[in-house]
């Protein structure tokens, strides 16, 4: 496996406006500049309050920006995993992964090996012929993750993708993501409004405050082992300790 390089997402003078439902222009982001450093083999968390700009979509290039730029420092492949289940229910697990591999130039044998590897990596072995047509959010998330990894992207951006899962399923997903981050060459970014989730998944949290979105700072949680302590540290950084829009 090649050594993973550290990666930066450089956001410069970013502006994002939307028209609200009565036709007025609402500024969600105004002149935002931030350098998000992605640590190799660790998950980076982006903490953004609910109801504001959708940072993950902007970084993934899925939303148009009004001004400024987002540079991914050479990363030409960013895969976005939405909040709601996005695995295709008309394809079984194997074919969901194959959907991505079929767009690459690798041969059939390599595809088969890669599918086997990804199924094992995401804990989906023995489920390759199952269809994601069920209510299990954990199962569907694993498929989305395996499919994202199949594209071998430099960055995988998860947009609050664990939201709505049951506690136990979420716990399993946390462990899975942490272990996968150590094993793959992709940088994993998790964008959320849940402080507890951000500090559970990552030691490297980038915090943004309320509308128009502003950068509050980066928090290195290395050395703080207590969960409560981590949450408090993040809360201190959020402007004026105003936690509206965040979940704890």
């Amino acid at each position, binding site marked *: 496996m090649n050594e993973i390089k550290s990666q930066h997402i450089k956001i410069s003078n970013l502006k994002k406006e939307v028209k609200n439902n009565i036709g007025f222009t609402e500024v969600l982001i105004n002149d935002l500049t931030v350098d998000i450093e992605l640590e190799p083999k660790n998950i980076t968390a982006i903490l953004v309050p609910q109801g504001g700009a959708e940072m993950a979509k902007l970084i993934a290039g899925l939303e148009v920006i009004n001004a400024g730029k987002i540079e991914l420092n050479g990363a030409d492949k960013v895969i*976005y995993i939405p909040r*709601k289940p996005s695995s*295709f229910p008309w394809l079984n697990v194997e074919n969901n992964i194959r959907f991505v591999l079929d767009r690459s130039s690798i041969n059939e044998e390599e595809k088969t090996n890669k599918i086997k590897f990804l199924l094992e990596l995401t804990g989906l072995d023995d489920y390759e012929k199952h*269809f994601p047509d069920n209510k299990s959010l954990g199962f569907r998330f694993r498929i989305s993750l395996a499919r994202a990894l199949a594209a071998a992207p430099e960055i995988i951006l998860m947009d609050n993708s664990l939201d709505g899962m049951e506690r136990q399923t979420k716990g399993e997903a946390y462990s899975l993501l942490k272990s996968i981050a150590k094993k793959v060459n992709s940088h994993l970014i998790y964008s959320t409004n849940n402080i507890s989730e951000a500090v559970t998944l990552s030691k490297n949290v980038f915090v943004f405050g309320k509308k128009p979105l502003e950068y509050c700072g980066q928090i290195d949680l290395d050395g703080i082992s207590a969960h409560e302590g981590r949450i408090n540290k993040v809360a201190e950084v959020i402007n004026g300790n105003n936690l509206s829009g965040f979940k704890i």
Partner: protein
Amino acid sequence: MEVMNSLKDIWFEYDLTINLLSSAAAVYVSIIAAYFITVFSLKSILLKESIVRKAVDKLNVFFNYFPYLLAGLILIFIFPASELTEYIFLVLYASFFLIAKSLNPDRVKEEYILAAKSFGLNEKEIVSQTLIKSIQPVIIKDIQELHIKIWTLLIAFELFKEGLGFGLVFKATLENSDFAAFIFISIILLCIISAGGAIIRYTHKKFFPWEL
């Protein structure tokens, strides 16, 4: 035995085989044709704000005030004895019904589009490989709704036309005040509709089992 004989008489007296086949063929051929027309047109309609999409929206408003049957009656007025008229009317109605329903924005799942975009699919591929696939079960559900509507419309349409059809048989039983035949034919119609409904449900379960 007597009952069987009398049912046999009704069957031959009203020429049920040919009338039944004529109506059933019109209904099911129209549904199948409308399904393919819908899937084919959605591929281009969903891609952008096309003229077709605008036309469908406008027609939808128009048909809130203009009964579909009236359009059928106009066709009968022009071509009174043409069986083709029936097919044209039903295919147009069924296609319009399915396309108008499929354009409901709630039916487009943003997460599939975002995922597909993220994997680098172009607009055409997103529509054909994700959007059309994702709404297939809903189209089949719409066909279930369409099925009973199209039978009702067909019977009403055939009451006014000449030639063949179940509606004409109903008309004849009413004109003859033949209550027994009316009940017998109604039961046959219910059986056909139930069987058609079961086939549509089976198709949904077998080929498009996922939820939107």
